[in-house]
Every structure is written in C-alpha cells, then in structure tokens.
C-alpha cells in the first residue's frame, strides 16, 4: 500500500522548552527515511506526534488523503516504539495475535517479561510488520537489542515494505544500518529537521558521510 506523510511547521513545547521549533518533514511512499539526532533531540516526540499520541503546539500533519485531525493516527499507520512498549504481563502468543492476527513463531505462551530484550524487540517488530494494509510505517530504534540475524531480517523486511509503496520512517543511532537501507536522512537538531538524500551524504559508500553530517555544526535548515 502506498502512502506519504507530511509534517509542516511542527512546534512542540513542554513548558518553556521547545522540543520542536517549526520542523518540516516529508516521508514519501516507497522510500525509507532515517531520523537521526543526538539523545534528547526530540526524535521520539516527533515520531509520537506523527502517530497522533501527542498534539503539536502548532503545525499540521497530512497524508495523501488530506490533513490528519489532532490526536488521531493517520489511516494505515503502523508503529512500534521498542520492546519496552510491549506489556510485560501478556503472553507472546496472545500479544502477537492481538496486534497482527498471529505472527509469532510457534506457540510461545511465555510472558513477555520472561523473554530476552532482543526477543521482545523481535516480537514487537514481527507483530507490527505482519499487519496488513500498512501504508505508513514508523519505528523507533528498531535495531535495538537485535542480533545480526535479526538486523538482517529487519533490513530485508523494511526494504520489502518500501518497495511495496509504504512510507517508512525509522529513528536510530545505528548509522551502519541506516546507511544500508535508507533513501533519505532527516537530521533533527535544535528542534529543526534537515533532510539529506543518500547521495548528499555519500551513504552508498558507508556511514562515514552520515557520521560527518551528524557531527557537523553546519547542519542548518
């Protein structure tokens, strides 16, 4: 399913502190956009704004179908915020069934709290990605806790989703993974987003360009 997500002039403040100060972001369908920023830059806040869990202080979010109402998730959106957002008291099997209709291997009746960090992450990712009709996919630190096999599986799954027309947005500090699969990179700093293409940062050659861009004080919108 194809989708596009557009955020315009997003402001978000907690008291006197501006987490976002007029950030613009386009997540085109059929592409993977990597969201990069230092700790505390507001990546999770931006992602949760796009999902409708938070209300922007001002600004709009739109999809191909039009503007998205405040406190509402865009239609066709799937989101996973990390293993810590999977409820610990639920069985892996039941959780997977409730979220996606059943995407977890075997008949794992163990409670989520009894799973390793990586397994919990895989459970959440598999359940999220198995959902049907996803046009926009937002993942927060999806490689966290994954082993190399898991990371390879995730990369292949995200590429497959984007080839199917899904607009994919992933935030991560794992620059190697981002350089491998992303078409565009959104750098979040000082409440603003700067977008660079794969070619801009020389990503086809590895993550060095990304690292330079990340470190650079020249990143201004």
């Amino acid at each position: 399913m194809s989708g596009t997500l557009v955020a315009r002039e997003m402001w978000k403040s907690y008291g006197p502190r501006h987490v976002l100060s007029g950030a613009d972001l386009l997540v085109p369908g059929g592409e993977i956009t990597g969201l990069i920023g230092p700790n505390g830059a507001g990546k999770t806040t931006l992602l949760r704004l796009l999902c409708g869990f938070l209300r922007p202080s001002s600004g709009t979010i739109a999809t191909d179908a039009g503007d998205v109402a405040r406190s509402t998730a865009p239609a066709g959106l799937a989101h996973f915020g990390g293993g810590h957002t999977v409820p610990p008291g639920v069985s892996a099997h039941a959780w997977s069934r409730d979220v996606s209709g059943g995407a977890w291997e075997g008949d794992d009746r163990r409670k989520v709290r009894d799973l390793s960090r990586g397994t919990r992450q895989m459970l959440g990712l598999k359940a999220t990605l198995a959902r049907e009709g996803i046009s926009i996919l937002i993942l927060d630190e999806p490689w966290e806790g994954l082993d190399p096999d898991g990371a390879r599986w995730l990369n292949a799954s995200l590429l497959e989703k984007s080839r199917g027309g899904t607009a994919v947005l992933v935030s991560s500090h794992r620059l190697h993974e981002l350089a491998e699969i992303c078409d565009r990179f959104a750098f979040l700093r000082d409440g603003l987003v700067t977008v660079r293409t794969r070619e801009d940062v020389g990503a086809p050659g590895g993550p060095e360009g990304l690292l330079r861009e990340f470190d650079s004080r020249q990143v201004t919108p």
Partner: protein
Amino acid sequence: MSFFHQMRFFGRVTPIRSWCWIGMAATLPFAVWLEIELPGSSSASLISLLFLQMLAVSTGFLSHARRGFYDPLLVRTSRRSAGLAHWAAATLPGAAIFLAIGSVEAIRAHSLNVFAFGASGWVALLLVSSIPWAISARFGALSGGAVWMLASVSLLVTGSGVALLGAIRAPGQAPIAKAVLAGLVFPMALPGVPVLASVLTALAALSLASVAVAVEWLARAEFPLREEEGS
C-alpha cells in the same frame, strides 16, 4: 479493529487484578450458600461484589498509555472507541457475576423481583462500574475505587454517613439532592431499597456523564512515553 477486539486487547493488557477476580468469583458460591442456608439473604454477596467491582474497574488508562502499551491499538482506532472498549472490558466480568448472583436469587425466589434485578440494583451496578473507572482512567489504577471506599468508610466512621444512609432508606422524606448524594457515597446500600425514580435517574445520569467526560478527556489526552516528557 472491531470493538470486541479492542475489548479483548484491553482485557489482556490491563487485566482486572487477580485478587479482585478471585474475590468477585467467590461471591457467586457465597450467594448460592446464603440462598440455601438463609433464603432471600444473598444480598450480602451482592454488596461484597459491588465493593469489589469498584476496585476491579479501576484498571487505569493513562499510566499504561504513557508506557506505550496501548500504541498498537491507538493507531488503529478512534480514541473514543478505545475509551469505551476499555470501560466495557473493565466492567463486564463484574457485571456478569452480578447477573449470575441475580439469577441465583431469582431461581430461589421463583421471581425476577429480586434485589439485583430491581432498578436500584442496576443503578448501583452502573455507579460502581462507571465513576471509579472514570477517575482511575486519569489518575491511575485503583485510585477511583480506593478514593470512593475511603470516602464511604470515613463518613461512616465519623457518623455523618449514618444520616446519609437514612436518606436512602426513607424515600421521599429526604431532599432529592441529599438522597442522590447518599446514593453516590453508598451505592452498595441501594439494592433492594425502594428509591425514588428521580433519584435513580439522577444517579444513572451521573454515572453515564462520568464515563462520557472520561472518554472525552481520553480523546484529547497526550500520551508521551514516560521518559520523554520534559526530557
């Protein structure tokens, strides 16, 4: 996501506490035993159930939403629908046991004219199922039931609650506002009492209004992840 699936999701992610379940389930054999030993006295089990229902429905919403536990559901359904499904999931187990106890009463009495199935019984169930849920949705698990129970017990201990109870038990003799207040503070005293229809209507309206206010609040609430807020 259908309403049933939403209810199942909430029932799994925010289940009723096991001690509440055990306590509520125990009221049913208790009612059977009472009806065998002392026919017509199973209202004691009904009162126990209403007490437990106050705590059972106080499952809390905001704290779980802020840990991201409801994310997969909240991106797929409207907040209002999610709020109502959360209320229904918290309420239904206690309501089912209430019906079962009423059935025990009705079978023994060979009549539907029993405490549970009277208008005051239904309103009592609605009160204890709605207001504590609405409070807990905002202020955290158990808060609604605990605050209500504390208020009832405090008023009884200080003596002022006894006068209020009188307002329920003497229909038509106390001002309506006082009778409504009495019903609000002591809902478990309602079943089996011939309460004025205007008082019951006001109590039912207050219950439904509390759910509506809570659902509307949830529809506008923000769910930042705990560590994210203000960081």
